[in-house]
């Protein structure tokens, strides 16, 4: 939708108007960069993203390249983070693991944002009985601890990364639904919704063009924070053997293998653990910063 708007803008633009169009985003950036922690978060996340994208170039060894001659070597110039019990380069595995964690976290959240957003929008917009019905179902789903729910789903459908993704998405869908429902209910009462109605706008138009764009800010903030939680959860599931299957270099799975050797090969578990902490921290910092920048009520 953003692309469409800017196309229209180009079609009927004077230079002054063009400048204005940019200023809204500039304003957002100005507020965002006021917070140092948010900037650090963004920087760290950028680092993580670069690692994921250029994993092929960064990793010195293939993630599944076994070399039994160099089992459980401590960190050295050749193996920056040492090697594991099969002689695989821990550094390379951590680097490739970035891809997996980001993809799983991002898509799980995207999936739940779409599903939860739709459910929440319908619930908040129509209110009354529809709302009551949907929210009770959501209460039920929410009463199950997400990790338990994920374990149940993954054990029912078999352990794989795709199933982990779906299981996590199901866990977060009600959370998104709640967030979206809340903001839809507030926005629904705004006068510009009445104004659209008087013009003859349909419910569909009102939801998609008027309510959702205004309800997006909290969704983005929640989304960022949920990606962090989803990454943790995916690592947790892999740790207990329900997620990624060997030889996939998943951080949680690496931790789980590493724990058997923690006394004499601490690097096997410490580095994947640090990677998880690093990524989650960057997302959390970014999410907090975004919340401050996007929430006009905190605008100073």
């Amino acid at each position: 939708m953003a692309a469409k708007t800017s196309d229209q803008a180009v079609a009927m633009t004077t230079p002054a108007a063009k400048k204005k169009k940019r200023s809204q985003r500039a304003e957002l950036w100005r507020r965002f960069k006021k917070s140092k922690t948010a900037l650090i978060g963004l920087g760290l996340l950028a680092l993580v993203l670069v690692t994921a994208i250029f994993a092929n170039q960064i990793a010195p060894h293939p993630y599944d390249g076994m070399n039994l001659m160099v089992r459980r070597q401590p960190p050295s110039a050749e193996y920056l983070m040492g090697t594991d019990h099969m002689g695989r380069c821990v550094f390379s595995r951590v680097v490739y693991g970035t891809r997996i964690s980001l993809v799983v976290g991002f898509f799980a959240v995207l999936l739940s944002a779409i599903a939860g957003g739709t459910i929440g929008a319908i619930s908040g917009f129509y209110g009354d009985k529809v709302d009551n019905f949907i929210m009770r179902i959501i209460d039920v789903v929410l009463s199950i601890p997400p990790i338990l729910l994920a374990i149940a789903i993954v054990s029912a459908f078999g352990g794989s990364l795709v199933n982990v993704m779906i299981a996590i998405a199901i866990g977060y869908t009600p959370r998104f639904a709640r967030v979206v429902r809340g903001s839809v209910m507030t926005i629904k009462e705004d006068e510009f919704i009445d104004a659209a109605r008087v013009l003859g706008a349909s419910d569909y138009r009102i939801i998609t063009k008027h309510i959702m764009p205004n309800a997006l800010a909290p969704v983005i903030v929640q989304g960022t924070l949920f990606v962090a939680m989803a990454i943790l959860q995916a690592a947790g599931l892999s740790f207990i053997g329900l997620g990624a299957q060997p030889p996939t270099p998943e951080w949680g799975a690496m931790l789980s293998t590493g724990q058997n050797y923690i006394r004499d090969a601490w690097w096997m578990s410490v580095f994947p653990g640090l990677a998880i902490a690093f990524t989650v921290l960057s997302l959390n910092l970014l999410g907090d910063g975004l919340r401050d920048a996007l929430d006009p009520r905190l605008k100073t």
Partner: protein
Amino acid sequence: MMEEKLLEVENLQKIFNTPRGALHAVDNINFFVRKGETLGLVGESGCGKSTTGRMIVRLTQPTSGRIMFQGQDIHILNKKQLKETRKNIQMVFQDPFSSLNPRMSVSDLIKETFDIHKVYRKDKERDERVLEIMNVVGLSPRLVNSYPHELDGGRRQRVGIARAIALNPKCIVLDEPVSALDVSVQAQILNLLDRLQDEFKLTYLFIAHDLSVVKHVSDRIAVMYVGKMVELTDYKTIFKEPLHPYSRALISAIPTPNLKKKKDRIILEGDVPSPINPGPGCRFYPRCRERIDPICKETEPEMREVKPGHFVACHRAE
């Protein structure tokens, strides 16, 4: 003046169910608006004038009564008919800060009216029309991609008006269109509305709490008090010989610039009665200086035509 009645309201009633009882927001009011005229609807806040306006544009469902537009009851229309009718009855909202979607630019906001009704096939024609309408309401073309938060109140209200007139409606409900604006801007907007009325042969229902604003724009003025209409007549008569004690109090409250002229202000005492479960008598009874006991307390005065075109709901009116 043409005699054709464009809009007719019959026994319109709106009761809200509140935890404390039935709130009679609008209670059995009757009036009509002739084609091309401006009917001013005044009253203090909470008297039901905005609810009346909202029912006319079908934002609020009446409890009972009919709203006839061109002889057609607008509350029994099906979806398609309603959409057609909406083209003809538009509304300008009170608060231009909240009645425009903050995520839409000026051009998006005006375009929307055409998109909803699929008026133009080609985007180019539509975009030209957007600029044309901006010109009509006095918005500079350089504002086309501005967002509402970048505009001042007057310009925002011009955008609101542009949206209202974009589809060439016959009737516009103006719900306190200037009360949220600075006094200097108020005059500009009132002049704009006046010019548009002449240019497009519009019919206005002008809702306001300020008689001095309504005075300048209305052909006839209706006064409401706690859900009831108490007086309805042309704009000259209401200022010269108001018959209802409440109208008299309202008119005496208009500030006059003449210092020498001694003003005889009627200060109303007591509070506005609650519209929840009102008693049987006149709503104005507790504050009325001219009440007659016991009739005013026990019987509600009906709206009567005391002189041609002059309606009053008061037991004293002759």
